[in-house]
């Protein structure tokens, strides 16, 4: 039972203030925080976005085209847009973060795609995997996020040890990017690109020589065109120079040291070299200074070509420069017009230093020589090819000749040319032939011919007799009849040959007759021996029968 005090006591409710923020809100907050952290982590972990420019986006596709270096994926193309000038494309690519340090200025990007050239086939794997952008990082330099893509893959990877040299033509032949540079048949380098200098009207080739072959390049090195087959006709004859098999289908350049020269100083920086037309040409020393003269030729100059040697006492001292000059106001219709041939003489070939000072001395000496009788004579170097050259020699008949000039150049007097001498030789030969005892020989020959004629007459008579026999109508008829008879006989004989049907029939008939006769033989014998046997036959018991051999 409850007491009164206890019943009067007021029970006080315990009031607890209600929480204003529910604990459930922690969950979305946590979600937001995790999501934000993931976004930040993703943003913070992605690599740099770079831009590469190309002329076209052929083979490239946003979100698919990979960027690789040494066949390892380092990035992905994210966007491809046209540039503002509409003359190229901007390729935005994301490079993986771990490779961001490779994005150095000068790094090279190019599109790898299948390529078939004379040098070989490359990029075949992209037929299956798809085209990709190859990234060749530069070693040192400032970081960059903008690169200009190469339209063609570089022939030499960055960092390849070797030497870059510049080559230029010494002739009208050309090479293209990728052509090989060979050393004794071994490919040691390539032409990386070709430039044409409009001011100099000259083609320059940037070539790369791989290590260790770059050490072969020296100040005395000469390059020459080793493409395919090089054939040359000149006064010395026919020269055939064949390169390696590869150069038969693609251009090639070879290099070496000219015969008799030392290796020279090793080249360490880019240097300029001429490409000579042939290996033989590298052995020809280049002379810078020369003196020019005219040679007036009265005869033809068909075998005298530009470059033909000008010799003195058998030693080449210069060459022909021009043969097609016709003086103003004159024409070839004028029969007496001499044809001017421009030649050059190199003081260096005369043993003088190849300097400007030597020009004056050589000029003075040559003028003196002309006064003493120096003349130019055209000689035939090669009778088969008809090549001609100019020979300078002395002729006393031309001594004290006054110097003549033509277009401000000294004219070297022209002597009797080789052809005229050849004609004289022929004339002397004819004279000797005339002195031969031709009449006696002819008399003997006439006797011989007369005897031959008599023999021929006999043969002709015999032939005529034969013709007469066959032409006679009666004889012809006889021959015809004989021929027909022989044909008939042949036909008849063929009918009686062993395999002929007639012969077989006769054979069977004879066999049948023989059999019949054999059948009648016993009857005849019987009738002959016993005439009554026709009615009373011989008794059978009279015949013996074969019996077994007695044991």
């Amino acid at each position, binding site marked *: 039972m409850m007491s009164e005090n206890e019943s009067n006591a007021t029970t006080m409710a315990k009031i607890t203030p209600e929480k204003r923020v529910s604990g459930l809100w922690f969950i979305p907050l946590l979600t937001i925080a995790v999501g934000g952290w993931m976004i930040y982590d993703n943003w913070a972990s992605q690599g740099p976005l770079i831009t590469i420019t190309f002329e076209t986006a052929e083979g490239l596709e946003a979100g698919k085209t990979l960027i690789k270096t040494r066949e390892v994926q380092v990035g992905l193309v994210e966007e491809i847009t046209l540039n503002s000038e509409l003359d190229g494309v901007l390729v935005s690519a994301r490079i993986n973060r771990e490779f961001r340090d490779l994005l150095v200025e000068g790094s090279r990007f190019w599109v790898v795609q299948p390529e078939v050239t004379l040098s070989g086939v490359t990029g075949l794997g992209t037929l299956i995997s798809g085209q990709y952008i190859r990234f060749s990082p530069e070693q040192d330099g400032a970081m960059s996020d903008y690169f200009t893509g190469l339209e063609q893959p570089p022939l030499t990877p960055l960092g390849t040890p070797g030497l870059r040299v510049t080559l230029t033509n010494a002739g009208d032949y050309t090479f293209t990017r990728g052509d090989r540079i060979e050393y004794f048949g071994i490919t040691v380098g390539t032409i990386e690109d070709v430039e044409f200098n409009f001011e100099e009207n000259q083609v320059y080739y940037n070539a790369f020589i791989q290590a260790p072959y770059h050490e072969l390049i020296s100040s005395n090195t000469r390059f020459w065109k080793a493409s395919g087959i090089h054939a040359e006709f000149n006064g010395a004859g026919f020269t055939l120079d064949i390169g390696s098999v590869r150069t038969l289908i693609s251009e090639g350049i070879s290099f070496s040291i000219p015969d008799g020269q030392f290796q020279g100083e090793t080249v360490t920086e880019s240097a300029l070299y001429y490409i000579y037309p042939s290996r033989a040409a590298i052995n020809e020393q280049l002379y810078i200074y020369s003196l020019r003269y005219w040679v007036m030729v009265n005869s033809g100059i068909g075998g005298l070509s530009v470059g033909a040697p000008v010799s003195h006492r058998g030693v080449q001292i210069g060459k022909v420069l021009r043969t097609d000059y016709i003086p103003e106001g004159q024409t070839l219709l004028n029969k007496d017009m001499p044809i001017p041939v421009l030649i050059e003489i190199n003081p260096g070939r005369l043993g003088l230093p190849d300097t400007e000072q030597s020009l004056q001395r050589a000029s003075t000496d040559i003028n003196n020589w002309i006064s003493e009788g120096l003349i130019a004579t055209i000689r035939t170097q090669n009778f088969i090819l008809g090549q001609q050259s100019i020979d300078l020699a002395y002729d006393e008949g031309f001594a004290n000749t006054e110097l003549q000039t033509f277009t401000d150049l000294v004219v070297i007097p022209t002597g009797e040319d080789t052809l005229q001498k050849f004609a004289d030789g022929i004339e002397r030969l004819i004279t000797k032939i005339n002195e031969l005892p031709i009449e006696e020989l002819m008399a003997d020959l006439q006797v011989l011919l007369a005897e031959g004629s008599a023999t021929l007459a006999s043969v002709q008579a015999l032939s005529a007799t034969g013709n007469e026999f066959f032409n006679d109508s009666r004889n012809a008829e006889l021959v015809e009849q004989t021929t027909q008879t022989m044909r008939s006989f042949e036909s008849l004989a063929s009918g009686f040959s062993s395999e002929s049907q007639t012969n077989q029939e006769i054979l069977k008939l004879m066999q049948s007759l023989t059999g019949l006769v054999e059948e009648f033989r*016993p009857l005849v014998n019987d009738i002959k021996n016993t005439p009554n046997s026709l*009615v009373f036959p011989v008794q059978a018991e009279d015949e013996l029968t*074969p019996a*077994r*051999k007695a044991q």
Partner: protein
Amino acid sequence: MKYNRLLVPLCLAISACASEPLPLSYYLLSTPSADQARQQSMTERNILVIEDVEMAAYLRQSGIAMQTNGSQLQISKQHLWAENLELAVPKHLATAMQSRSANYQVYIRNLDYVPSARYSLRVHIDNLQATDQGEVVSSGRYQLIDNENSTRSIAVDFYFERDLQEDGYSHAVAKIRELLGDIAADVIRSAESLN
């Protein structure tokens, strides 16, 4: 008319005197055999052609000859060859040679088409008969000519005999058949010796 009446009885009388005709037996030299059936190319090299088989005159008769003593012969009137021996012997020789060696193709002149032959065979048979001594004998000569080199040709005189184990012409004919087989084997041996 009077004679006609006599003619008929006379013929009847004469025919009554006639006895029955002799029974005749014909013998084949070659008996047909399945072994003979074969096909062969005619382009092979060793072709042997039987040019001629000449029989002794008494062997050309249809009656089978039997030697009754050293110099006497009996030509049977009852036992006859079904085919002339001059025709039958080459055929049997050809068959016998062909069955004994596959190295040669044997043809008979005047019966077969004969391509260019390596060997030519000429045979003449002097004896081919049974004797009263219980034997069958054959003798004669053959020439084997090498057409590619005539200097290598040979001529062989042969003599073969076999004993009769039974009586009668049938057995004798069978033994004669074996004698021809002996000749064929001898010819093959001779041809082999020329190679």
